[in-house]
C-alpha cells in the first residue's frame, strides 16, 4: 500500500501534494515495520517496503541536490543585495526615527514562500507575528498583515484572517527579483492603508546551518518628517522624502526576500540531508530484517526436509 502511494506521488510528481503526505508515508512505513516485527513478516512484504523506502531516499537525495544548487545561487545573490538593505537601514538608525506614538496603525509584512519541506523557516516568521499579536489585544486590532508567500498565509489566516490586507503568492519557485519586491511595495502604497510604523519579519541568513528570525523597521513619511534628528539633514523637501521612502521600501523588501530565500534553501538542504540519512538508517534495518527472515525461511525449509527424510527411515 505504501508503495502504491509513493508510485502515485512520484508519477504525478506533484511537489506540493508530495510534501504534505511525506511525513505520513514515513510514519506509516515505520508503523508497519513494527507491526510485522511482532507478527510473522513475510519476505514479500519486507522487500516491498524496502523498495519504497529506497524510493523515498532517492527523492530526498535529489531534492537535496536541487536545493544545494539553488542555495549556492541564493547565497551569491544575497551578497549582492546586502548593501541595499544594510544601507537603507543605516539611515533609519542614524536619523533615529521613531514611530509616532499617537498613530497606532501598524503594518507587519511576513516574508516567506510558497514551498514547504524546509524545516522551521516559515513557522518561525509566523510565530513571531502570532506571539506579538496575541500578547496585546490592542495591537491585534490595529495591525494589518501582508503575507508574502502562501505558507505564512496558511498559518496566519487561521488566527488573524481579519487582519490580512493582501497575500502575495507565487514566491519561491524562482529567485526573487527587484521587480518582485517593487511590485509588492507598489501594492502596499496603492492599498490605501496608512500606517504609522511597521516591520518586515523575515529570516536572516547566518550560515549554511543557521538562520534567525529578524525584523526591519518601516516608517511612514510623517514619522520621518517629525524625527528630531532630521533637522541635521540638509535641503529636504517633501517630494524627495516621499520618493526616498518609496524606493527604500522596495529595497528593504528586496533585501529581506533575498535573505529569506537563502535561509529557506539552506534549511531545505539540511532537512533533506537529514531525511536521506533517516531513510538510510531505515534501509539498513529493513535489509537486516529481510536477510534474517530469508535465513529463517531457509532454515525452516531445511528442517522440514531433514525431518521428512528422517521420518522415511
Amino acid at each position, binding site marked *: 500500500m505504501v508503495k502504491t502511494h509513493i508510485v502515485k506521488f512520484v508519477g504525478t510528481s506533484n511537489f506540493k501534494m508530495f510534501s504534505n503526505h511525506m511525513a505520513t508515508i514515513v510514519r506509516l512505513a515505520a508503523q508497519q515495520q513494527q507491526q510485522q516485527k511482532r507478527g510473522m513478516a513475510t519476505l514479500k512484504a519486507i522487500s516491498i517496503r524496502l523498495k519504497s523506502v529506497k524510493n523515498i531516499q532517492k527523492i530526498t537525495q535529489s531534492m537535496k541536490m536541487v536545493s544545494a544548487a539553488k542555495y549556492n545561487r541564493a547565497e551569491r545573490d544575497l551578497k549582492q543585495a546586502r548593501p541595499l538593505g544594510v544601507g537603507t537601514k543605516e539611515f533609519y538608525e542614524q536619523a533615529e526615527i521613531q514611530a509616532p506614538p499617537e498613530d497606532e496603525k501598524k503594518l507587519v509584512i511576513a516574508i516567506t514562500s510558497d514551498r514547504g519541506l524546509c524545516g522551521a523557516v516559515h513557522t518561525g516568521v509566523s510565530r513571531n507575528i502570532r506571539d506579538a499579536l496575541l500578547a496585546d489585544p490592542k495591537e491585534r486590532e490595529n495591525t494589518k498583515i501582508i503575507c508574502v508567500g502562501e505558507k505564512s498565509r496558511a498559518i496566519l489566516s487561521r488566527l488573524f484572517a481579519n487582519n490580512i490586507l493582501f497575500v502575495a503568492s507565487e514566491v519561491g519557485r524562482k529567485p526573487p527579483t527587484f521587480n518582485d519586491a517593487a511590485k509588492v511595495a507598489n501594492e502596499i502604497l496603492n492599498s490605501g492603508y496608512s500606517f504609522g510604523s511597521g516591520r518586515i519579519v523575515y529570516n536572516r541568513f547566518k550560515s549554511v546551518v543557521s538562520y534567525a528570525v529578524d525584523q526591519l523597521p518601516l516608517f511612514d513619511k510623517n514619522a520621518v518628517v517629525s524625527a528630531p534628528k532630521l533637522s541635521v539633514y540638509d535641503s529636504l523637501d517633501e517630494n524627495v522624502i*516621499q520618493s526616498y521612502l518609496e524606493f527604500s521600501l522596495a529595497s528593504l523588501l528586496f533585501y529581506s526576500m533575498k535573505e529569506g530565500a537563502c535561509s529557506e534553501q539552506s534549511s531545505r538542504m539540511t532537512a533533506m540531508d537529514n531525511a536521506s540519512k533517516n531513510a538510510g538508517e531505515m534501509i539498513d534495518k529493513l535489509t537486516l530484517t529481510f536477510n534474517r527472515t530469508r535465513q529463517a525461511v531457509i532454515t525452516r525449509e531445511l528442517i522440514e526436509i531433514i525431518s521428512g527424510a528422517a521420518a522415511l527411515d
Partner: protein
Amino acid sequence: MSAWRQAGLNYINYSQIAARVVRQALKADLRSEALKRDEVNVKFTQWKDGKPASKYIVFILFYLVVL
C-alpha cells in the same frame, strides 16, 4: 512636482521603467542575463473581512447590476 507623480505614478514605478530601459541598452552579451530581472512572478490576492476577495465575484456582481 514631477509630471509622473501628477499622472498618478510613484517613484517605484519610475524606477521600474528606468531600470527596464537601462537593461535594454546593455551590450548584447550582457543583455540576455539582465532581461531575466524584468520578470515578475508575484501575484496578489486582496483580502477583505477575513476572506480572500475574489475578482470573479466582483465581476459577476458587476454583470448582475448592469444587466
